[in-house]
């Protein structure tokens, strides 16, 4: 077992442990903070996979924006910030079984695939992944359409979210 593999196992344990905390902890702010640990772990995985651009974007977008939005939303929708009591619904054991079955199914399916334990070729040392990504995102015979559509999607999300959450005519009963 190389140092790399040991490092991967540690990161993997951190990711899975904090993910478990996200879904079980009672305090929602704590859940959001645990989510940040998970997201950071995933960013480290991206760095291991030589995708430095995605690793940094993971931190900027997820930790810098999405997690902040989650914390704001929790603070907006909670009367007391430290509520205890059951956070899981009554059928949680059934859901746990479903999740385990999902994992088992995925594992079985992956195992029967012949590329399962593939080993990566060495990363070409002078490979400009960011420049390549820019070319791929913008060249007409690659992904320019998804790129522009993503922009439209975000525009639609912005318009929709602003309209839903704070439309003054939609009858805010508590105003």
């Amino acid at each position: 077992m190389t140092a790399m593999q040991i490092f991967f196992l540690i990161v993997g344990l951190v990711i899975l442990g904090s993910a478990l905390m996200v879904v079980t902890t009672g305090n929602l702010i704590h859940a959001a903070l645990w989510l940040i640990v998970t997201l950071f772990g995933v960013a480290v995985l991206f760095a291991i996979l030589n995708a430095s651009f995605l690793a940094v974007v993971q931190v900027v977008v997820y930790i810098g924006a999405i997690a902040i939005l989650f914390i704001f939303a929790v603070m907006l929708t909670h009367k007391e910030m430290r509520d205890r009591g059951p956070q899981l619904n009554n059928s949680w054991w059934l859901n746990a079984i479903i999740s385990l079955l999902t994992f088992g199914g995925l594992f079985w399916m992956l195992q029967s695939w012949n590329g399962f334990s593939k080993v990566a070729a060495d990363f070409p040392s002078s490979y400009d992944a960011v420049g390549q990504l820019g070319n791929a995102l913008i060249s007409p015979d690659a992904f320019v359409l998804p790129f522009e559509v993503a922009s439209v999607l975000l525009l639609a999300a912005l318009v929709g979210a602003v309209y839903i959450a704070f439309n003054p005519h939609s009858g805010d009963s508590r105003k």
Partner: protein
Amino acid sequence: MIPLSWFLILSAALFSIGLFGVLSRKNAVAILLGIELMLNAANINLVSFWRYGDVSQMAGQVFAIIVFAVAASEVAVGLALVISVYRRRNTVIADEIDLMKW
């Protein structure tokens, strides 16, 4: 070097944990947290397939970027819905938002 299987198993486990969170959590915000975990699991898969396949084909990374955009939109609209419901019904418990059930 790490075999591809490790990444895939980790991502499957993360996806299952996220699924459990989505199914079992009462609070609507917490359900969205679970969805984030599932999207991240998908991203791990996409990026590891990019790395273990042909590195000069950027499809894996581009897909991951589109997933980022989708995650951001989903959070924006989802949380806006939760806040909107909270302002009218004064609850964020998913089971209590059942006006459309009947």
